[in-house]
């Protein structure tokens, strides 16, 4: 295939836009798994839950799904607090978080999925937005708004989370709890409360990412399972507990997918993406920006 500058430029733009979306999906895992050691395998289920809430409000009232998701993010935050509290009492406090905790989150994943099937049925759902079918063109380069708008909001969210973690007392407490819980306790901070709110933050980001998902593609209750591998891969590639790493890892995977799809064949895209992950871990086991 002839490689034109237009094709190359479009592959870069498409990869970055996709990477931004992947970053939004994965930033919550970076917090819960990367910093708190909570293997929240149900994270994609909350993304799908966010998609459906965005869908209902968009369908009934016509509000923009991304605006809706930001508005309901406090509810996701509360849900995350409740979920963590249950997880802590039943598993983490008893030292049973590894296997039983994992099973707990698997259960949450399936319960959420089945609940969505029972309430909404199994048909694919999409939202309608004013920008969904709009594409800006800058010469030969396309900027589909369906991907650009989620990208921009995703960047605000991810950078916002990073700034929150590094520039606020609570954010630094979250980083501290990832490093040394005992030291944090000795400083008079309750690590359980910190973890509870950090986990809640991760679920809130999942809710917002759900709106991005349903703007980008149709959604049905079981689709979350397709993203489990991806979100953990982004987190691990970027470096556990590093938000910048998650962003970088997401861009790497997005660009790899876009370039492979454009120039070599889309069926190779997962192999290349995960091959990059393995290669990175072979040479840098802590991930791109992990410590």
């Amino acid at each position, binding site marked *: 295939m002839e490689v*034109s500058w237009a094709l190359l430029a479009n592959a870069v733009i*498409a990869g970055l836009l996709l990477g931004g979306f992947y970053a939004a999906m994965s930033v919550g895992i970076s917090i819960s798994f990367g910093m708190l050691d909570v293997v929240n395998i149900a994270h994609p289920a909350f993304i799908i839950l966010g998609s459906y809430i965005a869908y209902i409000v968009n369908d009934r009232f016509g509000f923009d799904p991304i605006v809706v998701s930001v508005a309901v993010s406090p509810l996701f935050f509360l849900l995350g607090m409740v979920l963590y509290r249950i997880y802590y009492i039943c598993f983490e406090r008893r030292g049973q978080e590894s296997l039983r905790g994992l099973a707990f989150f698997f259960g949450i994943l399936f319960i959420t999925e089945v609940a969505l*099937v029972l309430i909404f049925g199994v048909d694919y759902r999409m939202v309608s937005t004013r920008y969904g079918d709009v594409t800006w063109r800058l010469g030969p380069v*396309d900027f589909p708004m369906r991907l650009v708008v989620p990208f921009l909001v995703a960047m605000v969210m991810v950078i916002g989370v990073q700034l929150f973690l590094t520039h606020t007392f609570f954010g630094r407490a979250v980083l501290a709890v990832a490093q040394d819980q005992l030291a944090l306790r000795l400083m008079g901070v309750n690590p359980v409360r910190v973890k509870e709110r950090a986990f809640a933050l991760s679920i809130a980001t999942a809710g917002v990412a759900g709106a991005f998902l349903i703007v980008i593609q149709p959604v049905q209750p079981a*689709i979350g399972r397709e993203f489990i591998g991806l979100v953990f891969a982004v987190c691990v590639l970027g470096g556990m507990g590093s938000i910048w790493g998650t962003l970088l890892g997401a861009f790497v995977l997005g660009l790899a997918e876009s370039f492979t799809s454009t120039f070599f064949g*889309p069926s190779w895209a997962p192999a290349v993406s995960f091959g990059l992950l393995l290669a990175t871990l072979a040479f840098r086991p802590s991930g791109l920006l992990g410590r």
Partner: protein
Amino acid sequence: MPGNNVRTTLRRALGAVFIGLALTGTALAQQPLKIGFGMSLTGPLAGNGKAALIAMEIWRDDVNAKGGILGRKVEFVYYDDQTSPATVPSIYTKLLDVDKVDLVVSGYGTNVIAPAMPIMMQRNLTFMTLFGLNVNSKFNYDRYFQIMPAGPNPAIGWSQGFFDAAMGMNPKPKTVALVGADAEYPAMALEGAREHAKKTGLKIVYDKTYPPNTVDYSPIVRAIQATNPEVVFVASYPPDSAGMVRAANEVGLKTRMFGGGLVGPQFAALKTQLGPLLNGVVNYEFYVPDVGSRFPFLEQFLAKYQARAVVEKVDPLGFYLPPYAYAMMQVLDQAITGTKGLDQAKLAEYIHKNTFDTYVGKVAFAKNGEWAAPRVMMTQYHGITGNDVEQFKKPGRLTVLSPKEYKTGDLKAPYHENKK
């Protein structure tokens, strides 16, 4: 006298035996006729699976209202196959060995029919199947029957109308791009498309597949555009059909003809969600309101189906799978009634030899269990405005390009100039 006592006892014993046999026969006749299957009730194809199940339940209720089959009420025993081929062998083993069903039919789709075939062949069962593309080409099982009207050579018949329409353009196209998902159905459809390309002399300038969980299809469409194909054939499942159609619009794909084997636009969810983005796309359908008068009995079925579909939140139109799911059961019903039993060999022989009257018209099967003649309608969407479902219930949003007996108009090319 002793001899009289023996005769009396013998008579009583014989009488008891006859009464017992009669009662057993009655009991058997009163036992429900159990039909077992797996069906996609969750997973990517659950929307279709649930719609098919509703249609089959309507058939069951219709049949039971008339007294059942051979005096036996029909009962279904089914499990969710989650649109996962891995679940299928265990489902059918359970149906046969534990639930002891009398008959089995398939779930929906190539992906879940193929893994059931070894079990059917091992146990010599007659197997009515629902929308599997070219499944029997490798198995050559003589008790396999397919209700999808792809014709005796399904891989070819599936895209025949598409390539006929393409080669009907003036001037004839010279190049074609083929793209599809990495899954069973698209693989079969692309196989057929390659055969057509070979037969028609079209040069294949792009021939690739993509993983089904792809998020952004625009790199794929751009790569296709870079090869400047005059015809683009796509074989895809619902989420990727939506992705490809959206990407074609975003990238501004310039080609003379686009579409072919997209699963998804046949039902309400994608028709309404994509709306005007579908204009200009050429795609297969099995029923459209524009030819409604050719299927007079279908309207009464669709009325029943649509009432239930709204309640159960599945495809409210029901044009794609439901009529054929109902027809599949009608064929089975007529075969059981015709052979007056459940003998698998006799059922298979009967289905091979006879033509059946169903809601989708007359159905006859070829030697390989596929339809004796293809009847895939190739259509072009046009005039779709907004996202309202009501516009699709009436004629006027599709032109039927083939087959000849259903044709309502001609292809409007090129695709990128006919997206209205």
